[in-house]
């Protein structure tokens, strides 16, 4: 019943052919994209052969958008419309952002996530990040010669739900199918572990441009198990630059700076810091727009002195992660250094001193995350070769809880729980006849709601009126493999299910995303329509392939009647997917999914049975 498939040049029609999948490191300072080519993970360079893409977006008066080195060059000319380190604003409110007063942007006062007023209109951090991701996607597609099947996008392990959701939204906006959000230190551990066939307990110390993560992992026989993670999602190289910047202002006794001069000094501060990693001192000479001159020399001693507290700030979460893992430094076999900021000798020394061993620097700290992500993307896309298989078990970085009476937090899922995870908690009404209830979801480690991040607040309506304390409302938290949360509630006595959707306080609503997509569609016109159709066709093909391969493996699980029903649904989908009616394709996909639901459940049970059935534990090979 197979349809004739006509392959594009350079593209194979055979199922299970190599799928184009990439790993994207969406960094605070730089972004990278990598893929697996002939079994090797490689970073994809731009046409000029440069691996990094500066995470800088410049908006022009004519509506133009520039990303990367071109944009970076504009930051001291047009600082207001040239956005650097946008990652620091992802999923963040105004009050969350450190040194906001020294930033040259026009922040718009809105509830939830900050927005920036630019010459091209009001932009959310999600839209700005989407511009970076679009550039990355274009680079990858040009380099690989085809449309991407999907991407693994890395996020700091310590990112909370709002920051993760914002990252996923940005990818969606950039037209990227996200195979998985992967924690940066975990990605690095994959790259390091596979390269060095490492076994045992490893710590990954990841200090980037704007974020700090520490993860403790157990590597054993193809399983990467994160035991604990910690960090600070607002601590990175930027903060070291800021200390130098403040030192310059203080030393040179400068008058209040224009945005241009401020940006210029920040760039010089960063250059001086980078120079100090190689040399004992760095000259800082600048002529400011105000006519003032700066002529200073930053020495290693001064730098060490002014950044001491920042270095200290990385050690407390590191010790905490070890405690959470139930380990001491003596248990740690190696410390893998990740992120450009770990090049600072001050960081190297502090880590060596704490762990009583020299840290491992044999991988490029700037590329290792993207390389690991590419390896994982390749695996998830289904390109794995025989024996080329491993399992990643990651954790949730921060506890999830609910507000209870008196502004206290009831923890539902503790930090460092292996994901995916689900937990339920029962609540009751406190007034007679109460029919509604407000549920506030928070994330963080403190006892008080006000000290945690509020993720969502929603109302549960339609509780049957009863005496106080009689209703039983079961609230279930589910965290998926991306570390993203969904919440459902159910009134148990009446059996009434009230499915509720978490409205992210700091994320974008689905409507907002739809509007942004519509906006970008109206610019692109027919292109967008064709793209959406093509996406639906690819998705339909994927579903058919998955179903057919399942039918091949376990046809015995189906009765003749069930089989006939599935076959008919496949034929129907194959018929409509050659046309251009996207809605019909969606409907036929839905029908096929429904037809295979029960089959999927049986196959999953069979798979688990096969993993273990009839064998004794001590005979397992894993």
């Amino acid at each position, binding site marked *: 019943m197979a349809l004739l498939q006509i392959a594009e040049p350079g593209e194979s029609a055979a199922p299970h052919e190599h*799928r184009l999948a990439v790993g994207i490191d969406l960094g605070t300072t730089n972004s990278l994209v990598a893929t697996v080519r002939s079994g090797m993970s490689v970073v994809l360079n731009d046409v000029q052969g440069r691996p990094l893409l500066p995470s800088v977006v410049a908006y022009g008066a004519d509506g133009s958008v520039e990303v990367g080195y071109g944009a970076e060059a504009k930051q001291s000319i047009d600082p207001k419309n040239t956005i650097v380190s946008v990652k620091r604003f992802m999923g963040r409110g105004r009050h969350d952002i450190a040194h906001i007063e020294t930033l040259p942007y026009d922040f718009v006062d809105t509830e939830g996530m900050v927005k920036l007023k630019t010459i091209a209109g009001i932009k959310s951090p999600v839209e700005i990040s989407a511009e970076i991701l679009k550039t990355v996607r274009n680079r990858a597609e040009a380099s690989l010669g085809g449309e991407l099947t999907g991407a693994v996008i890395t996020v700091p392990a310590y990112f909370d739900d709002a920051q993760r959701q914002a990252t996923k939204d940005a990818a969606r906006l950039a037209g990227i199918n996200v*195979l*998985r959000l992967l924690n940066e230190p975990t990605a690095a551990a994959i790259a390091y572990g596979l390269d060095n066939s490492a076994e045992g307990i490893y710590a990954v110390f990841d200090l980037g441009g704007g974020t700090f993560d520490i993860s403790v992992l157990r590597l054993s*026989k193809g*399983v990467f198990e994160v035991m604990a993670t910690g960090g600070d999602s607002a601590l990175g190289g930027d903060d070291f630059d800021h200390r130098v910047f403040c030192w310059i202002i203080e030393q040179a006794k400068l008058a209040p700076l224009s945005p241009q001069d401020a940006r210029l000094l920040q760039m010089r501060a960063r250059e001086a810091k980078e120079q100090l990693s190689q040399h004992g001192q760095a000259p800082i000479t600048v002529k400011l727009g105000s006519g003032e001159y700066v002529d200073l020399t930053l020495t290693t001693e001064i730098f060490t002195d002014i950044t001491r507290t920042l270095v200290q700030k990385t*050690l*407390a979460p590191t*010790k*905490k992660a070890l*405690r959470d893992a139930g380990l001491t430094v003596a248990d740690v076999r190696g410390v893998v250094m990740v992120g450009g900021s770990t090049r600072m000798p001050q960081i190297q020394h502090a880590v060596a001193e704490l762990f009583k061993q020299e840290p491992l620097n044999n991988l490029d700290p700037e590329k290792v995350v993207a390389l690991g992500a590419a390896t*994982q993307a390749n*695996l*998830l*896309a*289904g390109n794995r070769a025989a024996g080329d298989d491993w*399992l*990643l*078990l990651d954790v949730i970085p921060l506890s999830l809880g609910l507000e209870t009476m008196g502004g206290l937090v009831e923890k539902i899922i503790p930090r460092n*729980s*292996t*994901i*995916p*995870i*689900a937990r339920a908690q029962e609540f009751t009404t406190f007034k007679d006849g109460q029919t509604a209830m407000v549920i506030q979801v928070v994330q963080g480690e403190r006892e008080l709601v006000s000290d945690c991040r509020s993720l969502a607040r929603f109302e549960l309506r339609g509780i049957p009126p009863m005496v106080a304390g009689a209703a039983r409302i079961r609230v279930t938290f*589910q965290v*998926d*493999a991306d570390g993203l949360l969904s919440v459902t509630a159910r009134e148990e006595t009446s059996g009434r299910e009230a499915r509720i959707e978490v409205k992210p306080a700091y994320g974008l609503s689905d409507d907002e995303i739809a509007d942004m997509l519509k906006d970008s569609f109206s610019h692109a016109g027919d292109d967008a329509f064709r793209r959406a159709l093509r996406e639906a066709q690819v998705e339909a093909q*994927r*579903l058919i392939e*998955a*179903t057919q391969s*399942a039918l091949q493996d376990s046809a015995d699980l189906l009765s003749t009647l069930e089989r006939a029903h599935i076959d008919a649904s496949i034929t129907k989908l194959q018929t409509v997917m050659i046309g251009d009616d996207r809605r019909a394709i969606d409907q036929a996909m839905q029908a*096929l*999914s429904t037809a*295979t*639901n029960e089959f*999927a*459940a049986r*196959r*999953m*049970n069979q*798979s*688990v*049975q*096969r*993993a*273990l*059935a*009839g*064998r*004794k*534990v*001590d005979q*397992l090979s*894993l």
Partner: protein
Amino acid sequence: MTTFDLNFAADHFTLFGLPRVQALDLESLDKSFRAIQSRVHPDKHAHASEADRRLAMQWATRINEAFQTLKSPGRRARYLLELLGHDPQIESNTAMPAEFLMGQMELREAVEEARSAADEDALDAVRRRLLDEIKADYERLAGLIDVARDLEAAGNLVRQLMFQEKLLNEIDDALEAVTA
């Protein structure tokens, strides 16, 4: 040793093909966990249909929950007592031997002292002492459940251990405050 009989509703021990004991062989638990998770984890079904992916998440969630419960000796004991039909009355019964309470008060004082002096080493020392105590008590607990089958005494010890683990958390918080 039992062989596997898997279904979604099986109890945690059955799920991993392990005997219902407190003195659980953690290495076997680990092996079973990895073997099952290698089949069901969402990463193994990332390219499958939506129904498959949803099921994978449900199974992986179920396996994680079972693993977390059995891995922690305290949670394992509470779960096992429940399976054996004994309710240790964790919420309602707060009675504890005077000797135990005295020892705990002593430890608490040591923690308070170290915390106000911001003495990281002293906190570490109390933490190690408490960890040793907890470890010995868990060994005793395994004997009470698996060998003596004295579920009443086991329940009492479980309540004491919860008390000790709460103190351990407080020490961790103090350490965090001191090292921050």
